[in-house]
């Protein structure tokens, strides 16, 4: 009754597939064991390496050792990882001594080699090292990476350039910082903060001319890193003249928003609710009594967030004592406004 003979192609196919799959499985098991062995060997080597080098680096914070060994290629990455960790944690003269130590060990050459021929993690470490060493010779190569498509590498390259020469880096990179959506805003803001307000303020303000209006909201957000004396007038001018909702919102969110009561009162009536909500939030921070009437009106806004921000601002205003708030509540005809004011008062009391 066996219509299908054992030599049927389908049976052979199944049999060989099964055997092939099991053979590949055996190879994968060997691969796992090799991975495990390699990982353990690397871990042991690195632990031994770090236990030897951590005290040396700690000592170098005070005095650069005179005699230092040359490192093997395989030790570059653990050394630079540790060295950069120290660089990121320290300030001032200690950093300079660590740099002197690295230069004496010719780690600048090692870092350049990692940047040129390394894997992406090695390139990252290489660029950060060159940044901390202030290696101007690598500028062009690092700038090329900064303009490249790889998000993480380009961002690390931008930071390295800022570390080497913040002013030149900002001249070259500010338009990129304002336009590259793949560079997290938080990380970019942090890099600018690290560069220092003295350098960034003027350039951020001037960049408005070079950056297309579509990128202004991001540029305004970056201006938080600038000095208020320099950046505030720019934001004030933008707030007074610009129509774009995104830019208005960015200006209203800015840490350096200057006081412009008349404009804020107009923005409390803006057709876009996001602008009204931001304006309502800002008025509380400004603390001027002239906003009370407009904020009370905003308590009847059709959008919950505008009512919420208006109520929060009202309870923050120094002129609004509990009695004044109670009296203001009595004048409200809108149920939603009363509820919102009650919530804001309760939140304030609970803080």
């Amino acid at each position, binding site marked *: 009754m066996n219509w299908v003979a054992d030599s049927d192609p389908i049976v052979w196919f*199944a049999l060989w597939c*099964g055997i092939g799959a099991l053979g590949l499985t055996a190879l994968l098991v060997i691969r796992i064991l090799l*991975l495990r062995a390699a990982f353990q060997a690397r871990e042991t080597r690195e632990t031994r390496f770090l236990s030897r080098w951590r005290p040396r680096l700690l000592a170098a914070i005070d005095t650069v050792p005179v005699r230092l060994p040359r490192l093997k290629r395989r030790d570059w990455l653990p050394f630079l990882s540790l060295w950069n960790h120290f660089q990121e944690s320290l300030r001032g003269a200690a950093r300079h001594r660590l740099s002197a130590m690295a230069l004496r060990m010719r780690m600048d050459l090692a870092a350049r080699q990692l940047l040129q021929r390394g*894997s992406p993690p090695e390139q990252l470490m290489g660029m950060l090292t060159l940044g901390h060493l202030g290696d101007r010779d690598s500028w062009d190569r690092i700038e090329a990476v900064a303009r490249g498509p790889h998000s993480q590498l380009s961002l*690390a390259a931008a930071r390295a350039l800022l570390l080497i020469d913040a002013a030149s880096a900002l001249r070259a990179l500010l338009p990129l910082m304002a336009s590259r959506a793949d560079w997290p805003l938080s990380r970019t803001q942090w890099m600018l903060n690290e560069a220092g307000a003295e350098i960034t303020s003027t350039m951020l303000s001037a960049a408005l001319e070079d950056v297309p209006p579509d990128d202004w909201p991001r540029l305004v957000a970056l201006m938080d890193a600038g000095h208020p004396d320099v950046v505030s007038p720019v934001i004030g001018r933008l707030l007074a003249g610009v129509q774009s909702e995104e830019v208005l919102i960015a200006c209203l969110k800015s840490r350096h928003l200057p006081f412009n009561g008349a404009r804020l009162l107009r923005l409390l009536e803006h057709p876009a609710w996001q602008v009204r909500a931001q304006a309502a939030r800002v008025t509380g921070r400004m603390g001027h009594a002239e906003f009370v009437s407009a904020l009370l009106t905003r308590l009847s806004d059709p959008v*919950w967030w505008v009512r919420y921000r208006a109520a929060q601002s009202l309870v923050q205003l120094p002129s609004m004592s509990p009695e004044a708030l109670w009296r203001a509540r009595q004048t409200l005809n809108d149920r939603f406004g009363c509820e919102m004011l009650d919530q804001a008062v309760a939140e304030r009391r609970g803080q």
Partner: protein
Amino acid sequence: MMDAAVNTEPLFLAVQWLFVGYVVAMNSGYLALYLLSVVCLRRSLEGRALDVLPKVATAYQPPVTIIVGAHNEQASISPWVRALLHLDYPEFEIIVVNDGSRDATLSTLRREFRLALFPEAAWKRLSTRTVHGIYRSALFPNLRVIDKAHGGKADALNAGVNAARYPLLCSVNARSILQRHSLSRIVQPFLEDPVTIAAGASPRIANGSAISDALLTKVGLPRQMLGLMQIVEYLRTELFSRIAWSALNAALVIPGGITVFRKEAIVSVGGYRTDVMDPDIEVILRLHRLYRLSRKPYRIALVPDPVCWIEAPETLAQLRRRRMRWQRGLSDALMVNRGLVHPRGGAAGWLAFPYVALFEWLGPLLEVTSYAAVTAVWLCGGISTLAFLSLLLMAAGFGVLVSVSALTLEEASFRVYAQPRRLGTLLTSAVAENLGYRQLQAWWGLRGLWQWLHGARDHPDGRKDAQQKPPRPKRRQSSG
């Protein structure tokens, strides 16, 4: 007799081809996804070379609202909320939604966290069952509790969305076990890409691990083979294949252990649906569908790191219930969002949806039918024992290959199970998983599919009955 033989031969041959075709197609799919995830993981891990350095940008992490639905959780709710309060994250609030508990969940919370009624102005962007009151903790200003009428998980989450103050929402299952860094990790895609609207994480199995104050502190392995096999299964089906789909922005199924959403995205698609079995799976599919169809740029990411852990079922009965429920939830979600197969569906509509439909939704039907048909043909004498064993060998061989591939990737990336003995245990489980366990899962999946076809649904409180569909939520136009 000869006539009968001539008539049945093509049928027997077709059965064998069906079996071979299904096994080869399914496992080739897994292997292709595995290869893609190797590339994605390598890229992701390469970018973390500088993570060893002191953290610098934590102050810029956006604030998050964590929403926790609680229904009859009096025993576990307090330690669990305390664990959430200990998460390592700069700014977050917790909203516990007491979804009409009949036990002492609310009174426990009131006592433990000194809750007081709070006059919160309602903003019902999503319609929900009646909210009885909103409480605020006198001990922790970032903890609020919403007490509402029972409406199920989706309804509870929608109530939480209405009360959320922050731009990101984190939905956490009451059974999820987190680590202190979990929230920081899962928010990362939102920092990296401004069009990210959702990010999830595949859960890992917590059985055998050390848990302190409801947070996982040390990874371990379960003692039972059932738990071990689930670890391998989760690596194979929930982690590495989803990582590959995520790289194509087509991860349709993200388990709901912990998921972070951009609040405006959730509100714009109408919130969680209360008329589906598994609102977590459904909402991800709906986000894909509506964003693709409206051509809005978006990204739904899967974080590969181990950030969320769950207690795996320890008995076959529990496992069966979970598997059948999952199958019904997936069926609902796919049916509701079948419109994703659309000219604008992209990789999600034309690759991921057919794959999930064929191998995850209808997979149990095809698998059980294939095994049953081949066995029947063998019992009828249609194929020799050698042929039958060859077919089984192929199925098991491919299965073991895929499972061990997942373990290899785990070893090359996260090395969660670092001790050598654990590796041996998992390798054994990877083999054992293919000798009965997977087939059993397929059978339960088929039963789940059958129940779904016959309209069996779960009540939010765990009961099951037929054709009980709560009203669909409607998005309010007015914001007042």
